């Protein structure tokens, strides 16, 4: 079972240790120590805001690139995946089942940035067989949050 502290932070990473202590009926110091352990051991990789780029004034582009690779004896896809992940423009990188091997999410200032990353960096790596680049057009939902929020339905203020 996923740890309740992590579960709370996954929903809202802004929660302070004292708020977590209140919500989980635990000791604040113990919570702080537990979080430090999670961070050290890599159970928590980091914290970031979930952003709607349009409203945040980010005019950059995001693409999902399907990458086919030649696996290597011993390491499979790991060495190549790690190499690809290290580029700053790669925000996510997953090994996939199905028709291709890696799903690589790339961001760039504009279309040309992404194009040059694909043609000059990604495709030229030995072991990369092919790539298919899909540009993201619009965000509806991101990391569990809706880009367009609907008005809250109203409830009776007092009910039995």
């Amino acid at each position, binding site marked *: 079972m996923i740890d*309740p502290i992590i*579960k*709370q932070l996954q929903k809202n990473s802004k929660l302070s240790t004292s708020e977590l202590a*209140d*919500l*989980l*009926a*635990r000791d604040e110091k113990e919570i702080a120590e537990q979080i430090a352990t999670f961070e050290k051991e890599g159970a928590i990789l980091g914290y970031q805001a979930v952003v709607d780029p349009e409203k945040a004034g980010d005019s950059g582009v995001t693409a999902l690139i399907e990458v086919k690779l030649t696996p290597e004896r011993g390491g499979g896809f790991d060495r190549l995946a790690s190499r690809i992940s290290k580029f700053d423009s790669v925000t996510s990188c997953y090994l996939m089942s199905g028709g291709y091997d890696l799903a690589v999410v790339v961001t760039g200032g504009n279309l040309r940035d992404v194009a040059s990353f694909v043609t000059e960096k990604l495709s030229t790596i030995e072991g990369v067989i092919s790539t298919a680049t899909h540009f993201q057009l619009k965000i509806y939902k991101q990391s569990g949050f809706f880009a367009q929020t609907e008005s809250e*339905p109203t*409830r*009776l*203020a*007092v*009910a*039995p």
Partner: protein
Amino acid sequence: MNLDNFIAEHLRQIPRSGIRDFFELVQGRDDVISLGVGEPDYSTPWHIREAAIYSLEKGETSYTSNFGLMSLRREISDYVEDKFEVRYSPDDEILVTVGVSEALDLAFRALLNPGDEVIFHQPCYVSYHPGIVMARGVGLAIETKAEDKFALMASDVEKHITDKTKILVINFPTNPTGAVEPVEELEKIAALAIKHDLIVISDEIYSELTYGEDEGMKAAEHVSIASLPGMKERTILLHGFSKAFAMTGFRLGYACAPPILTEAMMKIHQYAMLCAPITSQAAAVEALQNGAGPVEEMRQSYATRRNLMRKRFEQIGVPCFSPGGAFYMFPDVREFGLSSSEFAFKFLEEENVAAVPGSAFGEAGEGFVRCCYATAKDKLEIAMERMGNFVERLR
């Protein structure tokens, strides 16, 4: 023409609901933070709403069997067996109703002759006593107490049993207190029901919403009185979709009872209601088939908010036992020398926060207020900060 004279006498005995006065006062105000709701703060999980939409798309807009869709009764039968460890046949032991409210009304009307006595524990849900009176019964309230964490003591039940007693109504976890019943008391109560040949109506609408010791991140075991030896034959188990599945507006509940009792309730249901809405029934099938995950997510979220509210009451020094179920806390405000109604009205007036006076849930609720924590965490924090300021001024 005096229209008052046309109103049935037994109905005239029933006073206007205390909640309605308070509701009207709250309605007239802006930006009230409400701890006064009696329902989840979630919309129904999308997969359930989507199933309702799909059912409409398919054109499922007809009546159903008076008992409810067979597919739903089968799901209910499996669900109840899984949760409560008691098996009811989908053929003749399950009746799908318009909320537990209807089921409760059916049970009273099906069983009571004029003058029959019904005992129930108080503070309790607002409709129990009026429901008994509307069925021409006589209601006797047993007061549950803060020092017992509002559990029902078998010894108190015994004191209220007379030769006219026909029904015992229990509701655990309890609205408005959040109380859960210790199994050993439940067993003693079952023994009393058998000894005195009573029918038990058990309203278990909050049974999924229980919180284990301290942090409550795990659910506590809920034991239904129907599952105790010799009890299925004398129990009407009431349950529904409103609370755990956040489906209050779908108005869907059910009664599980031996065939003769189910048939008797069915007689009234078929003439008064015909059947529960088919769209709600279709949604309920989906809820039972695939709803366990969302229910547990919501339960854990209520648990964290209960912890938060409990901590704040502790910090401001207002005594309140730690409730093991539902989504209510029932703090004791007797130290301030105000009636619970005065406390709630003043709190609303001065701090713009609505909490329901305990007296709305019967005389036994006097001196307490019901605070619902099914409210967004940020609002809960503000409400509790205001509660702190308010009681500080009263002291």
